[in-house]
């Protein structure tokens, strides 16, 4: 299943929020895991997105040692990123709630 435009950023932010700092590969794995392997993340989508988020100031990154003693770039959520996540999560919930009402609607209810 493809990732809906714009929702991948939200997933990245939320994952970093829950899991703490992660490297790109770990982030991809986590997102796939959380989605119950219904998503397959293309690195070609992920890394440019990480760059974009970093340029916007939502995340920051630095090099550090990974679990099996490799070096990797770790991404973490910044304070503006956390605020952005909260705002976007709220928007998302409102949108889905709204869409749900439409799908639940039957002719006789109206």
């Amino acid at each position, binding site marked *: 299943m493809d990732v809906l435009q714009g929702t991948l950023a939200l997933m990245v932010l939320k994952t970093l929020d829950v899991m703490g700092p992660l490297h790109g590969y770990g982030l*991809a794995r986590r997102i796939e895991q959380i989605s119950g392997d219904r998503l397959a993340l*293309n*690195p070609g989508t992920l890394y440019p*997105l990480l*760059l*974009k988020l970093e*340029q916007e*100031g939502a995340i920051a990154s630095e090099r550090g040692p990974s679990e099996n003693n490799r070096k990797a770039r770790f991404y973490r959520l910044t304070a503006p990123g956390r605020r*952005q996540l909260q705002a976007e999560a709220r928007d998302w919930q409102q949108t889905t709630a709204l869409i749900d009402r439409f799908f639940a609607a039957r002719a006789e209810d109206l």
Partner: protein
Amino acid sequence: MRALRRFFLRLTRSATRRQDEARLREELEDHLALQTDDYTRTGLSEADARRRAALTFGGVEAMKEAWRDERRLAWVEHLLQDARIAVRRMKQAPGFTLAAVATLALGLGVGSAVVSLANGLFLKPLPVDDAARLVIVDQTIPDRPLTNGYGHSYPDYLYYREHARTVSGLAGHYSTSPMQVVTPDGAFNVSGSVASASYFSVLRLQPALGRFYSAAEDDVPGAHPVAVLSHDLWRSGFAQAPGAIGSSVRINGTTFTVVGVAPKGFRGTLGGVSPNDVWIPTAMFGVGYRYCNALARGCNMVNLIGRLADGASIADAQAEIGVLASQLAAAFPGTNRNRGALVRAARGIRIENQAREAPIVTLLGGGAALVLLVASANVAGLLLARGLRRRKEIAIRRALGASRGRVVRLLLVESIVLALAGGAAGFVVAIWTMDVLRGFFGVSYVGGALNVDFALDLRVVLLGAAVAALTGVITGVAPALQASRSDALPALKQETPGAGGRRSRLREGLIVLQVAVSVMLLAGSGLLVRSFLMVHRGPGFDPDAVVLLRLRPSLVGYTNERSWAFQHEVIRRLEALPGIVAASPAGSPPLPGWNRQADVGLPGTTGEAADTLTTGMVYVGPRYFRTLGCGVVQGREFDDRDSPDGAARVAIVNETLARRLWPDGRAVGNSILVSRARHEIVGVVRDLQYLNALEPPQPAVYLDFWQQNRADNWSADAQLHVRISGPPATLLSTISQTIGAVDPDVPMSDTRTLGDRIDYQFSQVRLARGLLLGFGGLAFGLSTIGLYAALAFAVGQRRREMAIRLALGAARSHVGTLVFRHGFTIVGLGLAMGLAAAILGAGPLLASLLYGVSPRDPLALLAGPLVLGIVAAAAIWFPARRAMTLDAVDVLRSE
């Protein structure tokens, strides 16, 4: 905010073009390594694990592309790429580049110079703090132009200063006062200003040394003779010594104490006149202005400059000061009836001078715009031709998948880069041109620098760059569209496009335009050349043999009696000198615009307006016409018989006035009333005026200088005319020594030959002639080259067609005729259009600059176009000859 931050990050990365992809590579490697680790953990061999990892990873190049797109702005990147290609192409074709850049540099540079001129004359604010809030308040007089900048009386100024709330400060000044300043280092004939104490605070000036005078020192008339010197005068008059403060100087015969030195570079608030070197309080007005009591109502000599109060606009100030003016008009109907006030921003030179310079600056601007048009058309022609030569390259780009838009953008960027280079080189041209223009607009008639700043400022540079970029777009757009349209296949097969077609019609249209504009400019300059020749021939005497000088004994407090004795003595000693033919005083020099006016009538009539003629009137001394070297037609001129105190007042009339009053009789011996006083006519002289083409000769009457009313303030000073036989340079110093021997204190100024004065008086004609000739020559050169290039190119394109014609038996002369007909059609169209435009436009545009020449003068109009036609024929001849000498077999074999 976020988007903005990202935009700037990407912009800087695009601009610096850091190819830093290390981070991406690092991320990819980390990702692969981690994935491989995962696969090995599931039991795969090392090699298989790496293979699977690479497989799941996907296309690296596409990923790099996406990454790059995130890093920077694609369009900026592409633009820079195009610009780099453009610069590379410019280097590849240095000849073309040089021609195009030089052509555009001329067109843009001349324009920048005229813009810089207009900026200095009309727009620049004063060089003081927060000058944008400064306003000037002029008096308005019914039926007089608003551009005359009339001053107010001193009591009116005080009333405005007292009651106006929309201005936070109001200063009064009179800034064209001639001041003879005697300092320890010598006597200086400078221009000074009588200014209120508030002048310095309104302008927010800080003294370079000492202090400015206070309001208390500007209160009681005559009580505080204190002066502020300019930095320049402090340097030349006091060798920049700090001891200047507190020392005494004599200004126009009155002793003043120097209290301060103005900041360096400040030369007064009045632009376009001689810069100020001295400031004295308004309470000392009598020293700086002598013709009416400047502190009395009705003597409107005070110019006002003020600073808008916080929050007030010019409209607010106009509303309030307008009301104050009507209050004054009601309270003092004798002096202020119907007078109003006009508030305007303080920018540019003095408003009268702005009005005087506006027409010629407009003319120059029009000329510069036409030159730019010709230059642009020329470069567009070059680009079109180059587009044809680049068909193959463009076809390849298209074949490789570049969209037409992308190709157009590439070509447009090329022409914009070309134009920007031209614009940059144009500033060098602008600085040269500005040096020429400064010689006309920045110099007074005696050669002194005027208070005006023409330096290029940021606004001019930015405008120049914007015009250059726009020129790039305009010259580039048609060639780019044409070139990108080309069909890939025939272009790749190297087929030559046939003759004719839209492409060559566009080029030919551009040449017609260039020829037309050149003809217009050349015809206009032809008229001005004729006009200038008429000016020099006009007076009918040799103006270079007449020296003019201005003596002003009244400045050093001479009474009129003493001044007359002084002038008689000066003339007596001068006429005794070898090399001097005659010397005579006059009220004004024989130049247009200097005459006073008088009402002339015949005796026995009422002397009312209906029975009189308004004529020019000049007081001239004995032997005046001999001094000018201008013949007396009838009777005699004034001589020593005409005693000042004799009962018989004498007059001389010019031919026009004589004809007007006695259409068929002798004038000499008759009497006329000049301003109701009876005068006997002793002589008739030739019309001496310079004539504007559109005005008939004006009647003039000459009265005896020594018979004028001695109580008249003006009579104390005279313009002395001296006829010399010999080189002016050596005699000028002898003359000033002789006068200095009579009284060294009397200021003598404006010493020039009449020829120099005429040159200055007609400097606008001279300037317009020079520049239109220059512009016309430029346009002419460009269009001739353009014509030659276009025809040579057309012949090159039609080589095959012509070879076939020749092979089929056409005569060689026939092929030549084809080219000639082609060329002359273009030139003929251009000539006809240009001449029509010149005839329609010259009248209204040049009328005020034409003296003794009709705007439809055929000789002047046709001379330039004729030369152009001849040169154009030569430009056509060479390509035609090439067509006629074609070797048909060679051509057909080679294609």
